[in-house]
């Protein structure tokens, strides 16, 4: 289908959203009652301006944008920002309360993979079920059956009931069917967050192939994904557009500073060591520039049965992947627990690029020769901080090093 489109229309606007708003109700009973009222007024057209009724709020408020063929719009925002609601309106599942959406061409949605699967039936039968729900004809599915099975890499299991599939296998089969769509507008909602790495790469490649011929609207919490795929981005906050630009890194930056500080502190260990005082405030946003010194001072109360102890710090990223370690024992350093109260100071130069990080503090008991005998304390998210590099969000790689690169 895409081949028949004249080159003149390469840049035609496929998605046009004007002043879109949608309200939702916070309370279930009230929501159901409004539903009944809407059913009745809906019959009469309900052309009046819609105001907020008690217990309602704007889930999406006055959103506008345009999207052309070949463009990919990233929708970002924290939970409850209105991203999914917006996608539902764009997909025609629910009607807006104000504004207008104009979409040209076939719309494909990767919102749920494997819709229409029946667990009792085999993978092969379910390809037809899923395909039918996605709008394929029987002939199209039969023609594409081999491609679908090959893409899913499930040849061996294709005649097994889907209820015996692992969740990863179900996703594969679902994506393999969805990948056969030839839409003009593609809506993607975080479906790629599942499955193993190699299959995820396959999904990306397929989306990348599509990217040239379609207009994509892409919702994700993964900024690297947004940065890789999108040509423009919108940040939503409580239903409103807070940033909208072709400069993805600036939008991601705003998203980055939009997050509220939520403490993820969690203490475990033998209980013989406790954190008494910190010289920094972990409840507020700590912003630290790359290359500057981080200074963490704190008081430790340690049970007097412990003679010697040592300190370790681990820095994790948002997905809780370990990035850096600070370990006193690596340089053979450990301390004497003199009178149960110890003041410790850790200082290091922040090597991290843009991103959210947390540091976990671990206190060990050690013997006279510095061997670990007991873990006294593990304090998750002991220090939470945002690192910013002067050039903004230019890379989603957490650490860069200076290197000598020679050209002869």
């Amino acid at each position, binding site marked *: *289908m895409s081949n*028949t*489109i004249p080159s003149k229309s390469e840049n035609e606007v*496929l998605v046009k959203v004007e002043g879109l708003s949608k309200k*939702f*109700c916070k309370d279930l009973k009230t*929501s*159901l009652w*409004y*539903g*009944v009222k*809407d*059913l009745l007024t*809906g*019959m009469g*057209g*309900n*052309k009046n301006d*819609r105001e907020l009724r008690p217990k309602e709020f704007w889930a999406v408020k006055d959103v506008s944008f345009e999207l052309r063929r070949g463009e990919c719009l990233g929708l970002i925002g924290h939970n409850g920002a209105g991203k999914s609601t917006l996608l*539902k*309106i*764009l*997909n*025609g*599942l*629910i*009607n*807006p*309360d*104000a*504004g*207008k*959406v*104009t*979409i*040209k*061409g*076939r*719309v494909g*949605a990767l*919102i*749920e993979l494997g*819709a*229409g699967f*029946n667990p*009792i*039936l085999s993978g092969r*039968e379910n390809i*037809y*079920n899923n395909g*039918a*729900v*996605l*709008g394929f*004809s*029987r002939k199209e599915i039969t023609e594409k059956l081999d491609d679908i099975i090959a893409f899913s890499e499930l040849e061996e299991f294709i005649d097994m009931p889907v209820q015996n599939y692992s969740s990863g296998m179900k996703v594969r089969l679902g994506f393999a069917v969805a990948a056969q769509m030839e839409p*003009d507008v593609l809506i993607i909602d975080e479906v790629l967050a599942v499955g193993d790495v190699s299959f995820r790469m396959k999904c990306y490649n397929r989306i990348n192939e599509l990217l040239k011929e379609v207009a994509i609207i892409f919702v994700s919490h993964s900024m690297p994904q947004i940065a890789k795929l999108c040509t423009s981005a919108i940040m939503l906050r409580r239903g409103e557009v807070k940033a909208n630009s072709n400069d993805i890194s600036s939008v991601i930056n705003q998203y980055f500073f939009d997050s509220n500080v939520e403490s993820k502190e969690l203490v475990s260990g033998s209980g013989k060591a406790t954190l008494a005082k910190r010289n920094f405030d972990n409840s507020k946003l700590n912003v630290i520039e790359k290359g500057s010194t981080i200074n963490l001072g704190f008081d430790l109360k340690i049970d007097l049965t412990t003679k010697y102890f040592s300190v370790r710090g681990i820095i994790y990223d948002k997905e809780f992947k370990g990035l850096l370690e600070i370990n006193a024992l690596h340089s053979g350093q450990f301390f004497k627990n003199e009178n149960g109260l110890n003041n410790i100071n850790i200082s290091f130069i922040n090597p991290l690029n843009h991103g959210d990080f947390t540091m976990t503090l671990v206190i060990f008991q050690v013997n006279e020769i510095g061997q670990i005998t007991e873990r006294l304390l593990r304090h998750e998210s002991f220090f939470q901080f945002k690192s910013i590099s002067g050039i903004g969000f230019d890379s989603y790689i957490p650490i860069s090093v200076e290197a000598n690169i020679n050209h002869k």
Partner: protein
Amino acid sequence: MPLETKIYQKENNLKISKLLNTVVSDMLSSRFLATQLAVRDIKAQYRQSYLGILWMFITPLATAFVWVFLNSTGTVKLTDTGVPYPVYAFSGTLIWAIIKEAINMPMASTNSARSILTKINFPKEALIVSGVFKLLFNSSVKVLLLIIFIFAFGIGFHWSLLWLPLTILAAVVFGVTLGLFLTPIGMLYTDVGKFINFALGFFMYITPVVYAIPKEGIMKTIMVWNPFTPFILTTRDLALGLPPEHLTYYAVLLLCCVPLLGLGLVFYRVSIPIIVERMSA
């Protein structure tokens, strides 16, 4: 090739004729989806069951048996029905079961598709059409058993038996039309579904399902006006080769059903986004 343009905004397109047009065209274009969904459900239903099709007869057979027993032991005194009572009772409970299933079908179909309704945009009419397919499949199996009964009890073949598929279809259309109007509110409040089953249990006793209309009295008036009556009576009369009564009322109801079915489908179509909104809210 010009691209199809979709516009979503708050105003509903209010021209019933236009809406009806889209309903019909979506129904036609989603034939494959409807068949696929029906085949899926029927296959899955029987793949996980040993008794399979037997379950379809058990309820009407049991109800009929209870009444045959009550009648033969003289516990209740029923007026003569003109045909062997077991066939009369069984044909009644069977047609009643079909109508009941038809009324519940749109709601059951929509409910079972909840998870895809909130995520995927597909022609919703396919849910109804696939439900009708399933109903017709189930009904045809039931009718087969009825025909076996008719021959077993010595009524034998007669030409009006050929009307049976059509009258069953009419009963299905009547039930589905009723069900379509109840579905949108039933999707919001589970009370509706519970009430329907409660009300139908009661309605069976004012419909000539297991006994004939009395010759006089208040019960006669109620039964004669009850809209379920002609669907049960005409279907049974034609099946058992009796002269059909209440034909005028039957014809009037059927004529009303056709525009109402269209209206019900339009109501259903317009309601779905409102229901989806409340389901996902």
